[in-house]
């Protein structure tokens, strides 16, 4: 590589290295403050590190003649359960140190206590003045506390609500109430999200397809399933193809959001879509919610155009149908000819396409 090679950033690599080396000379550093910091290494051992400026030390000695020749000490206080004011510690001990900056390791006199450190000067007659004070540190117990307390909290959502619970052994009661309120406690072994867009807004479910879907839902209930129906009206007037496709697309997103909200509270086990116009919702649910997808294709676009040349809108619908049936774990069709088309034209594995005649719309066939 060329020496002049520049990093993506615009500055040549060799210049970057030069600057990096030059800036690296700012080590070691001069400390700008007097401090002492206390840390726990383990429950038996503590550590302090500190720095004092020579000026601060000289000033303190100048203020008090008795400290002129006093050595530096690290003083460790036991400040458990008190607000430390310099005089109210339970006990303390000193360790003589010799440097303006340094480390000191110490054994903790008693576990489960809070400690605090100072660094200062201590004369032989006991006169003491500190230069820096540390943080307070709790040194843990190294065994179970032995303190039994059943107090609990109920925390719901992302810190949305929380309240005290007196007895943690009541957790199951609260869980039950929480689930009941969220609608999670019903026994629905097979919750199914059924999607059918494009129903006539004037008549709603009062159409052959609507009846069929209602009957499927009723039948499923008998087998322990529960169908949540998602439908919305989409105007399928063929005048403006592009507008219609956009409308289906937009409606699909809206319906999917509704489905996602319900799914969050009460997870579905699968999503079942009817025909191409519902398929976008099913695909979104499969991809974003990881739900198995079942597609009912009551007829293919090839059947609907009855052999006429496929172009424009129909070609797009074919693409949508194909994408849906290829993504589905199961494709339900009403007749063998439709099944053949799905397998041959849409290249779906024959094992995944089953024929279920649309007989459910006629109750007499299903008793």
């Amino acid at each position: 590589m060329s020496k002049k090679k520049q990093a993506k950033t615009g500055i040549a690599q060799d210049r970057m290295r030069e600057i990096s080396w030059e800036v690296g000379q700012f080590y070691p550093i001069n400390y700008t403050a007097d401090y002492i910091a206390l840390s726990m290494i383990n429950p038996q051992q503590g550590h302090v590190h500190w720095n004092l400026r020579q000026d601060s030390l000289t000033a303190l000695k100048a203020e008090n003649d008795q400290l002129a020749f006093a050595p530096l000490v690290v003083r460790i206080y036991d400040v458990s359960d008190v607000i430390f004011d310099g005089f109210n510690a339970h006990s303390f001990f000193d360790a003589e140190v010799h440097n303006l900056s340094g480390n000191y390791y110490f054994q903790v006199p008693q576990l489960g206590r809070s400690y605090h450190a100072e660094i200062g000067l201590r004369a032989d007659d006991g006169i003491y003045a500190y230069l820096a004070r540390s943080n307070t540190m709790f040194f843990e117990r190294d065994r179970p506390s032995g303190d039994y307390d059943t107090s609990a909290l109920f925390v719901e959502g992302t810190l949305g609500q929380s309240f005290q619970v007196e007895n943690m052994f009541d957790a199951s009661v609260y869980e039950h109430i929480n689930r009941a309120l969220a609608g999670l406690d019903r026994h629905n072994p097979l919750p199914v999200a059924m999607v059918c867009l494009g129903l006539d807004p004037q008549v709603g479910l009062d159409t052959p397809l609507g009846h069929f879907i209602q009957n499927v839902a009723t039948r499923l209930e008998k087998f322990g399933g529960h169908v949540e129906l998602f439908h919305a009206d989409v105007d399928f007037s063929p005048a403006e193809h592009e507008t219609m496709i956009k409308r289906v697309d937009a409606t699909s997103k809206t319906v999917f959001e509704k489905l996602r909200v319900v799914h969050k509270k009460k997870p579905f086990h699968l999503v079942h879509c009817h025909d191409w116009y519902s398929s976008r919702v099913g695909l979104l649910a499969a991809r974003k919610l990881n739900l198995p997808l079942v597609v009912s294709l009551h007829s293919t676009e090839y059947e609907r155009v009855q052999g006429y040349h496929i172009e424009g809108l129909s070609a797009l619908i074919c693409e949508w149908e194909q994408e849906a049936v290829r993504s589905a774990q199961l494709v339900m069709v009403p007749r063998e000819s439709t099944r053949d088309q799905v397998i041959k034209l849409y290249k779906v594995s024959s094992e995944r396409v089953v024929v279920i005649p649309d007989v459910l719309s006629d109750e007499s066939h299903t008793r």
Partner: protein
Amino acid sequence: MTTMPKGYLAFVLHAHLPYVRHPEYDEFLEERWFFEAITETYIPIIQMLNRLVQEQVSCKMTVSISPSLLAMMEDPLLQERYKAHLEKSLTLTERELERNQHDPHFRYLADYYRQYFSETYDVFVNQCQGKLSAPFKMFHECGAIELITCTATHGLLPLLSPQPKAVEAQIVTGLDYFESVFGFRSKGIWLPECGYYAGVEDILWKEGVRFFFIESHGVEHASTMPFYSVYTPLYTPAGVAAFGRDQGSTKQVWSAQEGFPGHPDYREFYRDIGQDLEFDYIKPFICGDIRVDTGIKYHRITGPTGWKEPYHPEVARERAAQHADEFLTHRVGHVEHLASVMETAPVIVAPFDAELFGHWWFEGPQWLEYVVRKTAFDQDTLELTTLSDYLERHPVHQTGTPCSSTWGYKGYFEGWLNGKTDWIYPQLHECAHRMEALATNYGKGRIKEVTKRALNQCMRELLLAQSSDWPFIINNDTSTQYAIRKVKDHVSRFHYLANAIESGQIDDEYLTTLEQIDNIFPDVTYRLFQ
């Protein structure tokens, strides 16, 4: 599963590497840490999750990506360098096919690696367009994983706690950066090294974090006796849940001596052709004149001696399936027992360094996939869960203050604070102290753009110096000189900039250079120290 499970198993994979980007060199040894982890861990995990999602296998686990790792994943320079690294690896496999043409088994292994690198290349270049965060985001959105974050540069919070602003800056910067990449706020946090101290939860609560993880004795030695041990979380008084690690289920997986990864059928980590083959042959594929691992390893563990038999990938795969079954059987039995004596559903929390899976234990991702599949199809006692989901379903838990602890050596802090590493902490203390003074004295009100840039760069240098990786590496005597150099470089860069700010003489070329070398967290703000 149609009814409520008796209990839950929560895998937590913590993916982390320190920031090892070096634009000032064409190639840099430590950048290979990142490349190796992508090839051996991150992409195999992406491939595993992809298969599970495609096949609609019920899967839920938690993945923590540290902000420093995420920043490297997002970095275009490292993306480009990794692609070049993969291309080199593919070239090496071609040479290996030729070299081993008369040895059927080794030729088969060379072909195995060619396929392996080729699939990795396809995932990285064609599927992800170099952006590894994209598939993780997709898996989060479809519910297969819950993504959570960590502190900014993996600073060990209890050792930073004498300066509360340093702790807050680590937490807030990490959460903000994660959100800027993934578009949502993390609900949970991985405390670096599972390092907890009483009081950190107040900052977490304020930032909307709902849960974190600690070592088992962090729960067991809490201020109140945890009635259910580590099998339910403990709510801190602030309401943030602390989940304790289950030692039983994790040791079986991470321990090379007592756990699965040490089985003789698995691939031997320490036999790599980068170390074994003639220097002239391997030189184009290593780092300058330094022998390094190439990722091509032809031998299995075999036994405790130096003698190693050839590796058989299919045998190893079967062993992984068997170990997955063994693992799950124990967990099912454990959950059956726990559920019989508990009032609420137990959760077994199994956290691991993500790099264990694939990098250290080559067959780890296969094992994990088998566990997920077997959990989905072979039993109905327990369910995989994420911790957010668990807390949604089970919102009532005992309260108490956990015990300060880590998951490191002996359970506390001596792995990071000892005679070898204690020189670091005064440096960090001084930098944080000076950062506070700079933010207060030079960062208030309307300030010049160049001053703002310099203050933010000071913040980056401070965060980078605080990484827990440097004392850990120094203590373990691995890449000691590099770790020492990193601490000293970041500290000296900090003080160079601090001096420049204080003297009002900021050299734009120098500032730009430092911004380009240590370019982590573009939106970092020094105001966290005000």
